[in-house]
């Protein structure tokens, strides 16, 4: 398990190979990379600044990662999240999980990014071409995506 909160960019290939090297029990790995998107038009983006709560950020990411490891039989997991000023196309976040079997890797990776979005203290400030700066508002769809895992958990039959 590892959590990294950093301003600098990350090398996906290097991070993923470091995660699995030497562990022959891993049969599959899933990774998700979040990028700064620019949809153009009225919302055309110059840059985005990610603010976070140092200390609580690392604590929450570690707790979310522990939760994923409790729910699935993972051999390895990694969360890398950047902060500071980023431009369209830049990498924001990397989540990767590895397990003996693919389903645990797929499901736990989706779980991590869904929970991270609603539970890790990051805030995005967009610098738009037309309207200056504005804080990104939390999306109901992200809350629903995170809640999906709560319901599954409560509905699980032991």
């Amino acid at each position, binding site marked *: 398990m590892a959590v990294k909160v950093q301003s600098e960019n990350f090398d996906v290939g290097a991070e993923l190979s470091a995660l699995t090297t030497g562990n022959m029990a891993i049969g599959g790995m899933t990774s998700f990379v*979040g990028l700064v998107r620019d949809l153009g038009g009225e919302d055309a983006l110059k840059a985005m600044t990610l603010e976070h709560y140092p200390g609580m950020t690392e604590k929450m990411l570690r707790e979310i990662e522990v939760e994923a490891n409790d729910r699935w039989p993972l051999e390895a997991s990694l969360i890398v999240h950047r902060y500071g000023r980023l431009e369209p196309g830049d990498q924001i976040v990397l989540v990767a999980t590895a397990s003996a079997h693919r389903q645990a890797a797929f499901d736990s990776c989706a779980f991590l990014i869904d929970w991270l979005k609603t539970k890790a203290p990051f805030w995005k400030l967009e610098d738009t071409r037309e309207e200056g700066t504005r804080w990104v*508002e939390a999306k109901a769809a992200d809350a629903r995506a995170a809640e999906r895992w709560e319901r599954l958990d409560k509905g699980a039959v032991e």
Partner: protein
Amino acid sequence: MRILYFAWLRQKTGIDSDEVELPSGITDVAGLIEWLKERNDNFAEALSDFKSIRVAVNQDFAEPDAPVAQGDEVAIFPPMTGG
């Protein structure tokens, strides 16, 4: 008590952190927010809608009825938008 403000709460209140002496009688998150609103118009406006803010006490999310005490670190911020 140390109070931290993030994102638009930092901008609206005009400060990113503050040390305050908690008055006796204020024992929970809701009471703390009501007290902070009395500081000035900027605080009153920033903290006017409880539904649009989140609070953490000692880096754990806290509901309005969660207890607060003098030595705590309290953070006030909008819903998260990371990932």
